[in-house]
């Protein structure tokens, strides 16, 4: 194992399930034998605000905040919140964006405007980017609230962690009542 630290960012809107997704991811990485640090802000930002979670793993991790411009992968749960955090991604980094727009209050009030053509702008700067219809796949999985698990499945392809680390973690951390649809959602994302 070399001492390179891998940096993953997950961004979106408070209430989209980013915290649970990043919890599952960091548990998986620990299970895979890495040193892991994860960082995000709770509190005010939960109330529909912009949310970002940093996950770093390697042999030894110091800062839990990803040094600016050094993220290897950005997983965005919402288009604007994907676009917003692109400056944190390194050149050649991967960007996975959920095809969803949530208009923030200043846009609804007509005071500010939602940027146009975000997927094209992402693709122009980051050739290794993809757009995922998380909601469609979540509905396919049987529950529209499993979007975060679909996206986690898509992210899992970007990092070489064995399925044997993912499955038990999902079983441990997803409420039993919703386990089946979440397992399906994960596999739909992973097999995209």
């Amino acid at each position, binding site marked *: 194992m070399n001492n390179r630290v891998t940096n993953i960012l997950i961004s979106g809107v408070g209430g989209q399930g980013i915290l649970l997704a990043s919890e599952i991811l960091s548990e998986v990485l620990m299970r895979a034998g890495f040193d892991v640090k994860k960082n995000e802000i709770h509190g005010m930002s939960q109330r529909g605000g912009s949310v970002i979670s940093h996950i770093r793993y390697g042999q030894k991790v110091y*800062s839990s905040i990803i040094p600016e411009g050094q993220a290897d992968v950005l997983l965005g749960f919402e288009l604007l919140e994907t676009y917003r955090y692109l400056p944190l991604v390194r*050149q050649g980094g991967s960007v996975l964006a959920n095809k969803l727009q949530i208009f923030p209050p200043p846009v609804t009030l007509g005071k500010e405007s939602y940027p146009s053509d975000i997927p094209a702008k992402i693709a122009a700067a980051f050739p290794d980017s993809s757009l995922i219809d998380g909601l469609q796949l979540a509905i396919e999985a049987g529950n529209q609230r499993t979007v975060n698990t679909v996206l986690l499945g898509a992210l899992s392809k970007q990092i070489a962690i064995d399925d044997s680390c993912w499955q038990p973690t999902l079983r441990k951390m997803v409420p039993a009542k919703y386990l089946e649809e979440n397992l399906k959602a994960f596999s739909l994302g992973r097999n995209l």
Partner: protein
Amino acid sequence: MERAILSGNEAIARGAYEAGVKVASAYPGTPSTEILENMVQYPTIDASWSPNEKVALEVGIGASFGGGRALVAMKHVGVNVAADPLFTLSYTGVKGGLVLVTADDPELHSSQNEQDNRNYAKFAKIPMFEPADSQEALTFTRIALETSELFDTPVMLRTTTRISHSKSVVTLQNPVTDLPEPALEKNPAKFVMLPSNARKRHPLVEERLAQLEEWACQQSFNRVEKAGGAIGVITAGVSYQYAREVLPDADILKLGMVYPLPKQLIRDFAANYDTLYVIEELDPFIEEQVLAMGIEVKGKDLFSICGELTPGRVAKSLSGQAEQPYFSHSEPLPSRPPSMCPGCPHRSVFYSLNRLKAFVTGDIGCYTLGFMEPLSAMDTCICMGASIGNATGLSKTLSAEQQRQVVAVIGDSTFLHTGINGLMDMVYNSSTATVVILDNRITAMTGRQENPTSGYTLMGADSYRVDLEQLCRAVGVRHVQVVDPYQIAATRQVLKEEMERDEVSVVIARRPCMLVKRDPVARKPALAVDVERCTGCRACLNLGCPAIEWRTTAEGKGVAHINRLFCVGCGLCQQVCHFDAVGDIHE
């Protein structure tokens, strides 16, 4: 050894458990809240929410005086509330170990200021530990409790948001088993702080500090990490991680105890370097003490006093220039401020206060978001409980006519925290202002914690539910009205009546938070806008509901649109629509 990935807060709770803590108390406050929430899983700990931080500390002190180990947790501004018992506790010392966790919030992620509570350790003359990750949060909790007993002193453990909320890998151990059983023991010379007793305790406090300082030089929580570099760095807490990240070749004196400083250790370390940095967030707390020792260091002339540090900010401060990111935006991005949830019972109160042109003295909670556009109905916000006193004082300066516009708005939990004292004063000193208690039956902002109005304890037991109406009447409020904030017209009418009344009145807007986990509020089906009927008048947008969006139809007509993923069917938009355009979804 079992490994787990824990947040700093979870690790502190685990550390308390492993160290045999008997009593834990707190008032919720970001970023400290999860400490007590995570105590509940350990059956050997009696964990409780107190109505405020002062009570929480007093409960901890009582437990300590009985001989049990105690942990008390609060956010940084909570220590201001608990400062009165804290400073005298420094004189009495402890019996069972007592740790006060202060969770500071550099960058004001969720706070009204970014005070640096390391100053409290110096001010109250007590030791303070500062962990740099979750493993240290766990270990230092145990060491802090042992230090408390060893030196007969309360001990502070300081985290910052990035420590409290970051997760990292820790090793779990079994709890200690050989602690003495708590029992009554009279010792008035130590525990009764009359002037004659307290006078004798003060020199002991000073001696204790001197002993601690010397002891700290020998302890492994203060350590030197040699990289063989030409640069020396003194640092502590989360700043240590950034220093390691940015200066991999520097030698580092990593302090686990930030007060009192291990002066001899610092002297010995500093002697090796021509260039010595102190890297710390907020105040030049370590820097000033090192400078006072006659040692030259670089610190706040490079690193900002305001805001938190990050690896990038540390690098920029050291090199004098920021690294250009690969990608930067060529257009302005819309902000995404937090807002009240769809179905939030606070919304219609602020909507009405806006319409009634009230001057609102606000308070601390989710409802502080009533400040945001378009509700725009909050004019002051200082600290927990301040709304009521602020309204009293404001009224004293105003004409009779303007006095009627003054409305204090406060949540149920904040009212019991320190608002009730203000209400007593309001009646006692004949204020005429109106108080609105937003009673959503939970401490919502910090993530839905129980409180004395909710009817449940932290441990989940049923409990007495404070009767707010009776409480207000008992302090002398003659006009107490209860409204359902989902009824906009009725709510507005009552607010209007009470604002016009030249006497103290209390309006209780009662409806549970949409997000309460126990007895969840039944969500109604999402509503929809009839595009034919919608005239595009934008009246519904004035509610500031995140579920209501603005769309343009194929014909180019602007209409309201309800996002069914967010709508909980509260019906407020139906009530403000003049054209009957909002209704159930027909499919």
